[in-house]
């Protein structure tokens, strides 16, 4: 009996470890999957059955002016750092792309000339406009109503076609959901950045005058 145990136990261990290794490799191969990204794609599709049977995912490449290697430099380049929630939204088309303007009610101002209760017009790529749909980028998904966000923002220069509005600093870097546990990244790709938000905001809270 002991002899059997001597062979079976190592075998079980080897199988177990092989499973762990292959699972690790699988996770690395898959990387950032788009779990939870179940958008129904309807853009320019006249066949509704076909549309509902498919889904889409989007990936975005961000402009060079929006690259920050750490929270401090991103915070310095942000005109506003606020916590707020979505109170309304509307969409617009640019070419065949849909953009959503989220109206963010500021609950607290950490940086910038604004006061609690001000509303920020935040533009994010993605949304529905009539029969058109553009998927939100995985890094910067659709904002949820009744959810509190921490936002690093800047105002765009005035554009005669599109006016002026706010964008998230650092592309997708300057945003996190606020929960009782702290700041939650909206995408896994931003996790290493968001983990420093708490310390950064705590410092600001003490060093900057509040409105």
């Amino acid at each position, binding site marked *: 009996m002991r002899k059997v145990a001597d062979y079976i136990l190592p075998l079980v261990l080897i199988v177990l470890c092989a499973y762990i290794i292959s699972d690790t490799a699988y996770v690395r191969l898959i990387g950032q999957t788009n779990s939870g990204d179940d958008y129904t794609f309807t853009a320019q599709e006249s066949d509704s059955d076909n549309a509902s049977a498919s889904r889409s995912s989007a*990936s*975005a490449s961000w402009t060079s002016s929006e690259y920050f290697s750490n929270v401090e430099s991103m915070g310095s380049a942000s005109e506003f750092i606020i916590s707020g929630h979505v109170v309304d939204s509307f969409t617009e088309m640019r070419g065949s792309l849909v953009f959503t303007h989220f109206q963010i009610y500021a609950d607290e101002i950490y940086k910038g000339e604004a006061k609690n209760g001000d509303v920020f017009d935040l533009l994010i790529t993605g949304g529905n406009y009539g029969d058109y749909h553009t998927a939100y980028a995985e890094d910067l998904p659709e904002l949820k109503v009744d959810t509190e966000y921490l936002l690093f923002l800047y105002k765009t220069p005035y554009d005669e076609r599109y006016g002026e509005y706010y964008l998230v600093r650092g*592309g997708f870097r300057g945003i996190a959901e606020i929960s009782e546990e702290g700041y939650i990244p909206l995408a896994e790709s931003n996790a290493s950045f968001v983990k420093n938000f708490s310390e950064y905001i705590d410092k600001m809270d003490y060093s900057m005058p509040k409105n």
Partner: protein
Amino acid sequence: MKRTIICLLLVLAISIGAISFANAYTAVYPYSWNKNSLTCYFNADILSNYGTQISNYVRIGVMAWNNTDAPSISVGTLGSSDISVDMDNYGYTGWDGYNNTNYSPSNIINYSITYLNTCYLSGYLSEYNLWRAIACHETGHALGLNHYILAPSETEEDSIMKSNTIEYYNVSGTTKIYAPCTPDISAINAKY
């Protein structure tokens, strides 16, 4: 018992080795194309609004993946192509390139649309390799690649799939990548 311990240590060593020697990598989406050749439609406005040179370089950027195991891409026509590429000034959006890929529940890509935004880089329209690079990056997404992932302790490699344009093509710096690099090729070859 001795044999058990030796086996355990051996397997543990292999596991630790496999994990610690893992490099930064280009991540992949679960979806892919299920055909060997694809067609790409380049919006005629690219040629009429931005000229022959940019139009050619954007095309070369898309075709750069033909040197990998990915489905081969050739020029297609409006309405019947698998991939389409648009280029316009979409205003301040936060991005230079955006890719919208549509796929079935069984993770087969149906079609993919790439948008190139000239808003931020309008002063660099004659930097043709920049547009080649952005087109190449977005085509990586169209083929099912996600962004290049680098953990803090890992050594950084060149990759066309880094998430910021400036990280793979810096107009005022020395980094000028406009074709798939080793981690990108490894990821796409493993996928197809």
